[in-house]
């Protein structure tokens, strides 16, 4: 399983300044579990994915711990990390058309994922790749093995990407907006495919998305991210039924599908703080409807309630429970 502990990422920008894209995130993804990581674009959720994969922009600084099955990935050499990527942790990214090498046969790209980590013959890799393509629902996989990506539809390409990602039975899969570029009807198919395959093999999934509808469909737990920090996490049922953080509540209220009442959708006023100079207190304070004195002076303490966690001063009165999320 994957444990992320107080991870901070600083990315250099022009003028010798730094953006704190991820500001102390603690998160865990258990075996066979799907955790939805939700937030607006630019909130640092993809950067967190990059931190786990060891694929941050060059010059970035990473602190905290990234533990995969108890092993700290931060101490790895480049070659050791390469052996982990695609083997123990895999990635499915947003746009399947951009993820595949346009000049290579799709089957070869799946076989490559296998041969990157296992010393087997080309022929054996090819046979396994065909089986993987079959498992992700590519019709007539042996014949389509040699086709280049542009002869596949977007949904079919994402199936190929998933086949390559799951080729080596990884412990954790990072799925970064895996359905955003696809048609709505295809989205559900791909999500259910992901769910079926990972539950069967016990692969944990960190599903990065901006779409709460996606979370509701397939996730077990949810973590809500705002301006580089996780503001609330818990089971999907608890968080959706009773969001504790004002940002989570606002996010749920602004979902068209989740909004039963007629009239305009509520919007969150104000702007995300400048992360080259993160605010001293709560990062949501400037936009929060329920802001008070303490919010702007000190960062909120993480409190837990019923197995979930929330970083908000409103819930400070609640009795503290164990720090670790099971």
């Amino acid at each position, binding site marked *: 399983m994957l444990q992320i502990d107080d991870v901070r990422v600083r990315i250099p920008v022009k003028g010798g300044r730094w953006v704190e894209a991820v500001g102390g995130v603690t998160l865990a993804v258990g075996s066979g579990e799907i955790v939805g990581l939700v937030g607006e674009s630019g909130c640092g959720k993809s950067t967190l994915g990059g931190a786990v994969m060891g694929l941050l922009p060059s010059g970035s600084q990473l602190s905290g711990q990234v533990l995969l099955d108890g092993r700290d990935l931060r101490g790895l050499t480049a070659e050791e990390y390469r052996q982990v990527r695609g083997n123990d942790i*895999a990635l499915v990214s947003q746009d399947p058309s951009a993820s595949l*090498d*346009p*000049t290579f046969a799709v089957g070869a790209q799946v076989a490559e994922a296998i041969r990157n980590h296992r010393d087997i013959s080309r022929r054996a890799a090819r046979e396994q790749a065909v089986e993987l393509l079959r498992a992700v629902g590519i019709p007539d996989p042996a014949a389509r093995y040699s086709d280049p990506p542009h002869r596949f539809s977007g949904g079919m390409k994402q199936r190929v990407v998933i086949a390559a990602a799951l080729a080596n039975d990884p412990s954790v899969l990072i799925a970064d907006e895996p359905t955003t570029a696809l048609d709505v009807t295809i989205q559900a198919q791909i999500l259910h495919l992901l769910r079926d395959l990972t539950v069967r093999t016990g692969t944990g999934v960190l599903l990065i998305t901006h779409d709460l509808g996606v979370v509701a469909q397939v996730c077990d737990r949810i973590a809500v991210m705002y301006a580089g920090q996780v503001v609330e996490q818990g089971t999907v049922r608890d968080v959706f039924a009773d969001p504790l953080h004002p940002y989570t509540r606002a996010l749920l209220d602004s979902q068209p599908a989740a909004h039963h009442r007629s009239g305009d959708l509520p919007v969150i006023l104000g702007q995300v703080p400048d992360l080259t100079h993160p605010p001293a207190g709560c990062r949501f304070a400037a936009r929060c409807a329920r802001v008070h004195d303490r919010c702007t002076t000190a960062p909120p303490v993480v409190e837990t309630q019923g197995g979930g966690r929330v970083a908000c001063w409103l819930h400070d009165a609640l009795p503290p429970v164990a720090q670790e999320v099971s």
Partner: protein
Amino acid sequence: MNPRLLFVLRRLGLTIPVLFVMSVVIFLIIRLVPGDPVRTMLGFRATPESVAQVRAQLHLDDPLWTQYRDWVAGVLHGDFGQDFVSKAPLSELLAQRVPVTLEITLLSMVLAVAVGVPLGVRAAVGGRWVRRLTEGFVVFGISVPDFWLGIMLVLVCAGTMMWLPPSGYVPFMEDPGGNLTYMILPVLTLAVAEAAYIIRTTRGAMLGVIGRPFIVYLRAKGTKERSIVYRHALRNAATPIATVIGIQFGVLLGGAIVVETLFALPGVGRLIVTAINQRNYPVVQAGLFVVATLFILVSLITDLVVGFIDPQVSDRGDS
């Protein structure tokens, strides 16, 4: 039908009108010479009888289309006519000259690609000093005229140091080692500028590919960096590189004319230049035709190679 086969057939079909147009243009040269080309060839003192005799010999009094038909029919049978000065059959002359030009151009291209592609890749993904050095080489290679570079090479390697023969030629079949020794300076002369263009194109194409998302995805699969750069990125960058190699082959054929003259190599280029100065029009016509045909064939091969490297190119237009 198999899309690749269709692509090959379509590209072959495009080549035929190009060959036709080229053959017409080159056929017309001798007929476009102002005044009477035969009189120009023979000089002012030629008698009207000898002029008439040569005109008849070259079939210049036939209707144009008959002349063209006869010429093309001859060429298709390997008969290019006669050298006007030596009276030797041109096919024999070309058979001696063409291999020399091909050897220089192909060796230069092989050397330029062998040096240029890896350096271009390093210039895109390597450290700062590799970038600086290659940039300097590119500016140098593009700015310096090839024949002047050749002369400077002669000055340094052949003149002052006596390392290499300054000019001359022996056929490969007679003395392979000697042949290659004579080839070193001409090939270097042509290859420097070629390598500069190939480096520049490779670097630009690689930089374009390296920034694309599928490279990140390859890393996420745990693909080795070597394989990402040389298998995936280079293959995606191959289309512009192959295109430039094809275009530069035309430049090389032009450069070969100059370099053959400079190093006294008996190639087609030197043959053409000598023939122009002697007003030996049948030789000019045959020489230009052979070089232009080579150029068109290389363009064809380049396009086919690009189509096979990048399936998106060969698939375009079927559907």
